[in-house]
């Protein structure tokens, strides 16, 4: 019985930490964007403007939660829940530190890929249920973008699976004891990072939203806390991809002994979250067809070649 309680406690802690982190990321993003663009940024509410998150949340909760009369009501309500649920489910398999993880699945990596592929539904359904031209266009773009970039994401990770010989994320981290996978698999890292940005549909790949052409894309019709779910889902997605990059390429919790493993994991994750924000501050958005062309004509061959070469070298070393 105590193990069940421990489990539930663990899940509750992870959920609480993640949602809090995702909320404060809003502040972090605005503040860092301001720093990089030579502005002040939010600095009024509380010390360093930290309380802007609280103000934002209160505002979101008190806004009118409006469902358009022309929308498909059930699906309109379900769509924002899907994104938050699938991203949070993915955190189940991430090993934060030795002993601090929820489920050590032997198909952990595949579970992460499966959850991210289910996440597409939130965009597609949200856009379709809004019954609005801009939303539908955003949904179509989102579906095409996320389905194609999932392919490269999966392919880029297979090299790591070949080297570590397991889909279990703990084994993958332990396989990096001598040498992080960023050194042996640099190409896979680049492909995974780009695919990760496309999967979270963050700038520069926020083509499903593209506010300069599509109003707000798939969530044009959403207001109040339903919009808030999409918003939080996006920040949770950034955290997830950063955590996955750290686990897969940067040795997870491994690091010099003067800091505990959990702190190493959190530090590395924050570096990548900051990298995501820096991307937003510095890069323009490509055109939709450029994005698809780039994916299928460059990333796919590169990922396949990486797979082929990794396999060849592994075979040679075994002999």
């Amino acid at each position, binding site marked *: 019985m105590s193990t069940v309680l421990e489990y539930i406690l663990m899940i509750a802690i992870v959920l609480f930490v993640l949602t809090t982190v995702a909320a404060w990321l809003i502040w972090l993003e605005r503040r860092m964007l301001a720093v990089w663009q030579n502005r002040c940024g939010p600095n009024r509410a509380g010390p360093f403007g930290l309380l802007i998150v609280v103000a934002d949340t209160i505002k979101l909760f008190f806004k009118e939660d409006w469902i358009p009369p022309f929308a*498909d009501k059930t*699906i309109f309500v379900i769509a924002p829940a899907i994104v938050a649920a699938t991203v949070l489910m993915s955190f189940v398999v991430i090993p934060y530190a030795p002993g601090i993880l929820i489920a050590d*699945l*032997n*198909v952990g990596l*595949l*579970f992460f*890929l*499966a959850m991210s*592929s*289910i996440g*597409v*539904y939130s965009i*597609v*359904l949200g*856009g*379709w249920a809004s019954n609005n031209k801009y939303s*539908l266009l955003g*949904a*179509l773009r989102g*579906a*095409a973008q996320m*389905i194609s970039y*999932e392919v490269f994401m*999966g392919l880029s990770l297979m090299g790591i699976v070949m080297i570590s010989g397991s*889909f279990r994320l703990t084994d993958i981290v332990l396989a990096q004891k001598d040498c992080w996978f960023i050194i042996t698999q640099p190409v896979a890292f680049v492909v995974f990072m780009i695919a990760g940005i496309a999967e979270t549909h963050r700038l520069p790949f926020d083509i499903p939203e593209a506010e300069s052409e599509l109003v707000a894309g798939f969530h044009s019709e959403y207001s109040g806390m339903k919009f808030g779910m999409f918003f939080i889902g996006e920040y949770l997605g950034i955290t997830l991809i950063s955590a996955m990059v750290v686990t897969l390429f940067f040795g997870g919790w491994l690091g010099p002994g003067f800091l505990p493993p959990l702190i190493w994991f959190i530090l590395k994750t924050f570096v990548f979250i900051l990298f995501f924000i820096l991307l937003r501050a510095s890069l323009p958005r490509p055109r939709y067809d450029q994005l698809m062309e780039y994916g299928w004509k460059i990333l796919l061959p590169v990922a396949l070649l990486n797979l082929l070469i990794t396999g060849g070298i592994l075979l040679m070393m075994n002999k």
Partner: protein
Amino acid sequence: MDIIFYITAFVTLVSTLMVITRHNPVHALLYLVISLLSLSVIFFLLGAPFAAMLEIIIYAGAIMVLFIFVIMLLNLGKETEIQEKEWLRPKVWIGPAILSVILFAELFYLISSPTTSYLIEQTVDAKTVAISLFRPYLIGVELAAMLLMAGVVGAAHIGQHKKTTLHRFLQEEETR
């Protein structure tokens, strides 16, 4: 474990039934997605986690999204719903019902006969799947690959179109 299996099986059956009876195509497809997800849970319970994950990634995550993508593009509205209602009259149910009853009877017979064992106690992991795919069933994998290649070539052929020049002066030059 048994009770989890029966709950998932119930969800699968109900959602599959809903797929057939919904009038709105997108709602029907969503029930199909739920049915596929619960099927993958059943795979997981039967000791095939690799197959379960692939079921989600390929069927629920890719193929069904493409289905919904196409239906969204077709923009089927109220008319299809009315059409579906017209088609789903009670008379239509007779044929499929008879076929299903035959299948159910067969299934009942197979399960009730004591010699068959339908639960495998050993877990089928990724390695076992890979070994069986590339040793005894290699020819099947290669045939599937050829079939997919044919599909890709066909799609490339259909998608190919002549380069059109939109400027009228350039067009005139070409016709000359």
